[in-house]
């Protein structure tokens, strides 16, 4: 782990005399490398390490008996703060019905997460409705239909081929069904697909969702910043959900996305089953990134 690595480096250095400022600066290389190996974006890692170095130089690191451990503690605290501090339940503002719009790249876990959020809020006493707005992927509508049925949540399936129209129709229908939470599942798309991004803008403009959740796969690498910036520029999303955290990817993409968009991570997908969702814990991800 990074902690072990830094400890052994400083042990050697201390054996040679007092820890110097240069020693601390040099140790930043190991921190940067650990972050890159954890998939933190190149520029984000550089900026982050600079922050850490400023902190480390201003503290008792040089006089500490365990300088390596102290530096790692500083890194962990900085990471946790950047990732959102203490995990917090967030609540919807304004009157019902509240709307959540799921967006993101292909295969990131939007459809599954839509169902997970529906169950999560149903357990909290809300009356959710799922909206199948992916008309492109083969059997996408069927997939959401099956998931909705398994948790007794109604799934709106329009007879239109146009996702914008489907979402409009769904909102009208939700009033009849007295649903107080509408979750729009949209098709996966590339941030460089202008037409598909335009479609999302149209849906967001018409529905004015309370929350637009950018769904990101926890195993995403350096490209995370590109898609996050593009989706944020176009949609000004309100939050991020991180999926497949039940794997062993370090999850550095989450730090990158937070650093470049400033938007909070709200939920974590921790499995394939519909109940495998939890509130995001920044400190847990910080430990995971550090390895």
């Amino acid at each position, binding site marked *: 782990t990074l902690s072990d690595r830094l400890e052994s480096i400083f042990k050697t250095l201390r054996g040679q005399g007092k820890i110097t400022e240069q020693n601390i600066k040099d140790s930043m290389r190991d921190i940067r490398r650990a972050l890159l190996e954890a998939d933190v974006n190149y520029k984000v890692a550089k900026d982050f390490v600079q922050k850490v170095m400023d902190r480390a130089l201003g503290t008792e690191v040089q006089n500490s008996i365990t300088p390596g451990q102290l530096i790692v503690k500083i890194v962990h605290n900085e990471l946790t703060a950047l990732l959102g501090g203490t995990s917090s339940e967030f609540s919807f503002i304004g009157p019902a019905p509240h709307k959540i719009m799921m967006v993101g790249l292909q*295969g990131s*876990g939007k459809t599954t997460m839509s169902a997970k959020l529906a169950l999560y809020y149903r357990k909290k006493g809300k009356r959710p409705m799922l909206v199948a707005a992916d008309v492109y992927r083969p059997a996408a509508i069927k*997939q959401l239909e099956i998931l909705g049925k398994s948790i007794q949540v109604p799934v709106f399936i329009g007879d239109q081929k146009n996702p914008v129209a489907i979402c409009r129709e769904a909102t009208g229908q939700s009033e009849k069904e007295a649903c107080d939470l509408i979750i729009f599942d949209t098709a996966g798309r*590339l941030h460089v697909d202008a037409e598909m991004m335009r479609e999302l803008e149209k849906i967001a403009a018409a529905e004015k969702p309370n929350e637009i959740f950018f769904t990101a796969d926890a195993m995403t690498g350096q490209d995370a910043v590109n898609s996050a910036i593009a989706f944020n520029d176009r949609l000004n999303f309100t939050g991020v959900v991180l999926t497949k955290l039940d794997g062993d*990817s370090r999850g550095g993409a989450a730090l990158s996305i937070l650093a470049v968009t400033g938007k909070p991570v709200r939920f974590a997908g921790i499995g*394939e089953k519909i109940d495998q969702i939890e509130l995001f814990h920044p400190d847990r991800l910080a430990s995971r990134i550090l390895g």
Partner: protein
Amino acid sequence: ITFRKRIDDNLLDKIEEALITSDVGVEIAVQLIERLKALVAENRLVESDAILEALKNEMAALFPALQEKEGFLPENGRVPGVLLVVGVNGSGKTTTIGKLARYFIRERGKKVLLAACDTFRAAAIEQLTVWAERTGCELIKGVPGGDPAAVAFDALVAAINRGHDLLIIDTAGRLHTKVNLMEELRKIRQVLLKKRPDLFVHTLLVLDGTTGQNALMQAREFNGVSDVSGLVVTKLDGTAKGGIVFSICKDLSIPVDFIGTGEGPDDLVPFSLPAFIESFFK
């Protein structure tokens, strides 16, 4: 990137950044930078304009195994050949199978059979059914929740009896950290080989092109239970570069067979190492 200056640390830093942001990984980026430094020291690289060419040559030289040397399929009439398609959740397996069916039917004139061995995920069988209809090939399926190995077995029997050239098996996405799911995959492969010990089974690991360093972990684990023969890297029509294949090649010598460039049946390109390296510096 434009290189209109002398080769100095600043230039090498820019190259390091380009490599790392392509998901090549720190170790390989450092290795390539060291090679460039050595060339400069030996005076074999002087002009900064030449550095890009030198880098491309180094990338090709370090990883020749990336380009599949033998044919992708058994050409000696050893039919049916089997493509076992595996990978983590959402990487693009089912879509890739649709594209492979299109490719082998239309470009290679093969008789293809598909097997829907993802019996777990909602509408997985329906999804593959659409692809079978789209590309005009038969599909063997079981019931949702059924045993995938049993479906695989039935599909192999059907492929043998009906004289198919190629059987392509779709499996459920699975994280390589889930031991029971990885064992299920091992069992699928064993069932096929038990039925016909000399069966040509080419295991294709489908990797999402946006994946970071975790791809190496995935490749190691999937290789451990199903002997990965080749990679397909999907979603390279986005901005991701797919640089993780270099580490996988270095560690496991697994070649890349195809890259996925979109969501339609024709969006599959046979891998070319020079073209792939070119794409890094676009």
